[in-house]
């Protein structure tokens, strides 16, 4: 607890205005506030003390679609639920582009796909996506209880050519493995992997 306090206080004391231009493994994940699909303002910092999984998503993207169709994404969400972690699905598609949804549509998607994210966050101007340098859908991040970024990259090792022919349930799931490793008190074996999927549809 003491350590916790120190790490939080120090940057505040000395560098009140630390400007994070990008995210780096083993450093503090930048805080943000976004509206969720129920119109509530949600901040990353309010989940301090819990592990957080962030998923960049776009339901129209065939890569994302395959992960939901096969139940792979839902099972990963269930897994994180069981260990009491927070799951944030962020949509950074700009209005008029693929994957952009209204709050109502977002809730419908969650329902029809039997997904169980803690929150679906709407980032249609891409601010948070760019802050985290989210490149693809899906693009995954794990943040630990102290707000430190522990993983960024793909959801599993099924990426690469021939993705559409692969059995996702047989793939090595980086999120499940990473959470298991963190729970054991270990460091994540490969904290950075190549994210794969469609490009995030930022406003141009």
């Amino acid at each position, binding site marked *: 607890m003491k350590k916790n306090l*120190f790490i939080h206080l120090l940057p505040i004391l000395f560098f009140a205005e630390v400007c994070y231009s990008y995210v780096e493994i083993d450093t503090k994940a930048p805080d943000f506030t976004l509206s969720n699909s129920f119109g509530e303002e949600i901040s990353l910092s309010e989940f301090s003390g819990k592990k957080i999984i962030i998923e960049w998503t776009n339901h129209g993207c065939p890569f994302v679609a395959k992960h939901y169709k096969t139940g792979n994404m839902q099972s990963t969400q269930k897994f994180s639920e069981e260990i009491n972690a927070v799951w944030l699905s962020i949509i950074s598609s700009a209005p008029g582009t693929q994957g952009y949804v209204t709050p109502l549509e977002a809730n419908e998607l969650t329902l029809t796909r039997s997904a169980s994210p803690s929150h679906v966050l709407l980032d249609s101007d891409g601010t948070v996506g760019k802050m985290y340098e989210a490149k693809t859908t899906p693009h995954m991040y794990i943040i630990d209880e102290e707000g430190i970024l522990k993983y960024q990259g793909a959801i599993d090792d099924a990426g690469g050519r021939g993705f559409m022919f692969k059995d996702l349930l047989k793939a090595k799931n980086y999120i499940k493995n990473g959470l298991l490793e963190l729970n054991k008190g270990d460091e994540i074996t490969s904290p950075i992997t190549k994210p794969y999927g469609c*490009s995030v549809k930022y406003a141009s």
Partner: protein
Amino acid sequence: MFVYAVILSSQGIHADSQFQASNSKISLVTESLTLTENDELLVGIKFELEEGWHTYWENPGDAGEGASVNWSLSNGFEASEILWPGPHRIPVEPLMTFGYNDEVILLTKISSLKNASFPLNIKANVGWYTCKDICIPQEGEVSLVINKGDILLTEESEEIDEYLSTVPVDFEQLYRIERLDDKFFLQTDIGEGDHYQDVYFFPKAYGLTAYSDDQNYEKNLNSFILEINASKAQLKFDAFEGVIEASNNEETSYFNISYPLEVEKVENNQSIILLLLFAFIGGLILNIMPCVFPILSIKILRFMDHSENSSTKTYKFGLYYSFGVILSFLVIALVLLLLKSSGESIGWGFQLQYPIVISVLFYLFIALGFMFMSNLVFGGQLGQLSSVARVNNESLESFLTGILAVVVASPCTAPFMGSAIGFALLQPGINSIFIFLSLGIGFALPYFILSVKPSLLAFLPKPGAWMETFKQFMAFPMWGSALWLLWVLSGQVDSDTVVVVLIGGLFISLALWLLEKNTSEIKWVKWLVRLVALAFVIFSVLIIPTSYSEKDTQSQEELVYSEVLLEQYRNSQDIIFLNFTADWCITCKVNERVALKTRAVKDIIKQKNIKYLEADWTRKDGDIAQKLEEFGRTGVPLYLLYPSRGEPIILPEILTEDTLVRYLTEIN
């Protein structure tokens, strides 16, 4: 890669060489419809995309995925991996992808073995993505029958050849990759060959270079350099691998690049053992500091009394005391590590490579020396805590005494702790814990020995003035360390900057002296003096150099070129190295970092008394231009090595430490 050679069970399959998908069409193309045994045939999957759509290269860049092909071939035939034609940049702001617009043929070589059974049925199951602003996955099957016979080129063969010519080949020219800070430099000697108008590098794998950053291409007379930003993902690679696209007029060529990358050197453990030894000795010395020794003497005597009245052995007290001391030091180490890691997380680097770190440490050691030499004491009130550790449980009291010995003694151990902290900060985390552990053991050991063998107490010197003398003497090792730091600094910045840091040291000392002499009874005078001292400290910190000096070598062997100076050295038959450079010349800067300013080269220049002249063409000086022209140059870099007699040698544009040392060694 999927290579399948399966016998087709049914011979009556309808061969369909085309497949129409929603916005793209694929077809299986071949250079010949006939083939014999022991031969090779080029076939390919041709993608025809609707306007504005693209598909991907083997490394798709930030998003997307390259196509994959599963081949089914008759018995006795093998398919190679896909031969990917050179890719194009397809930016999707703010991302960058690599692929093909409109049309491409992904080629594959099919070899027929001795026992090949004709006819050859080729079936290809293809999965691919076509993308515009959105991506659509496609899957299709195409097939062909190849009969036995001599190769007879089809109409398609021309098109196949066209794509074959863009499949990257090994780069024949000499090249090297240098990594400097967060950039890669691809330097290539193209000799008398043609120059390219533009060059671009496509990495093979994720995490090597930054996809969406621009790359900087610079042409020289017979070499070029490409500056490529490294990826922020910082994955470890054994080799720098990828494809370069080199364009010349309307022709674009693709070459494979593969260059081994140096694995980071492992820190040597020699210095840490020495540091641990110093820490241990430091811990021993702590015992005889004026504010520690008297307390310890009293405590020891007290425990002796106690043990006479009770059955408890004195060594037990020693053990508890040692625990207390070592624990305290470990806590200090942990706090330090915590501070360090939070510092690093906000971008502070604790390495001797940074002039700012060295300068701060220099101030620290100057101040520590001053504190040893003077009567200046910070936190003197802590000394009054010594009575706190009197409790009835003797074991607990010993333990608390151990802790208090560290806390209470802090006013006069501060200089020691300061230097330990200074060195520990430069070490990796686990090492700093060991340093403090060593310090703690050193501190606790004499007391522990005495508690085991109290008779040794008789040999202990009495506290007295000698202790103050000893304390003052300790200032000199501190100043010695400061001197060493200054020497390290002098290798990074010019002499003017070193003097600036020395002035900073002067003001730090002045501030400390003011604080020591500040005994005024009047409150506002006291605070005014403190304020002035603070101002001095702030001033010293503000003048710390934050970066390496641009004119790094001005203070050393380097001289500014002028025709007169050159003539003068020529007349006195000196060996001269003439470096034509400019600030905007990337090649020059890379050569300077990797060859010209290395220790080995500097040493040999000094040793052979070679005159090192620098002609700085940053502002395109007329005299320098004229000199360049004499050697048929219109730009930099140009390196001339004048022997003591005779014509100068023109050195290669791409310098390495080895070649330069060889030239400099051989010249006379």
